[in-house]
């Protein structure tokens, strides 16, 4: 009855202070920030619905997809600003979505932490690269 490994079927929810895990948290109320990720995911999805449509339609409206043509288009504020938002929100929404998937399918707490860290680092790393490229495009065209 001391360590988690010896806990039998009848008292597998037993915790050191004599209460069950449920008894320990019952009545405490919510942490009051659980809904934030859920809401952010939906806000970014609504924004991406608009920006994704804009992205595809804009590419189709370009006369061609040669480097010079795309660069000239992206350097204008009316393309650069939505594009920067599109890139940023894509990475945010992707990070939020993958977090939910990891939480759902990775039961092990250490594994969850590892996956969340790997995902966070990859998203921040690739997202920073993409934004760097955008900044280079807009300043390269200005000079």
């Amino acid at each position, binding site marked *: 009855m001391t360590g*988690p490994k010896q*806990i039998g079927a009848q008292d*597998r*929810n*037993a*915790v*050191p202070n004599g209460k069950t*895990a449920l008894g320990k948290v019952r009545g405490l109320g919510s942490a009051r920030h659980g809904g934030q990720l859920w809401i952010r995911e*939906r806000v970014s*999805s*609504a924004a*991406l*619905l608009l920006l*994704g449509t804009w992205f*595809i339609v804009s590419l*189709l409206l370009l006369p*061609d*997809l040669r*480097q010079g043509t*795309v*660069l000239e288009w*992206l350097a204008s504020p009316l393309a650069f600003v939505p594009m920067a938002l599109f*890139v940023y929100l*894509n*990475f945010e929404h*992707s990070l939020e*979505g*993958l977090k939910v*998937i990891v939480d*759902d*399918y990775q*039961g092990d*707490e250490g594994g969850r932490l590892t996956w969340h860290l790997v995902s966070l680092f990859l*998203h921040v790393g*690739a997202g920073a*690269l*993409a934004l*760097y*490229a*955008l900044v*280079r*495009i807009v300043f*390269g065209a200005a000079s």
Partner: protein
Amino acid sequence: MSRNTSRPLSPHLTVWKWGPHMVTSILHRATGVALSIGGLALLTWWLLALAGSASAYDDFSAAASHPLGILVLVGLSWSFFQHTLSGVRHLIMDSGDGFELKTNKNMAYATWAGSALLTIALWAYILLGRGA
């Protein structure tokens, strides 16, 4: 903190009877993962190539117009349309609407029809209409 390791995780593919809503739900996740990994890698590569030299952009263009590259792009555009339409379905359901069985089933079918039609229309336009 003691944790009961014998408790189940989120129900997985094996426990559900396959139906339109269930397929749509799992497609939402699968396409989301595909867009996260493939889509964002491609978007980042495209932007870096654009910001880089002419040869860097030529490399991207060559890969994107290769038959295998087109196959990947078709898959990603279908993923985008399926995930987006399914996302709209989720937003409708988040508002409390669309839980009536028949409505729910029809909305699930509508996402498949919509994503297939949009993908076909997009690639017909790119490969035939535009003549690029």
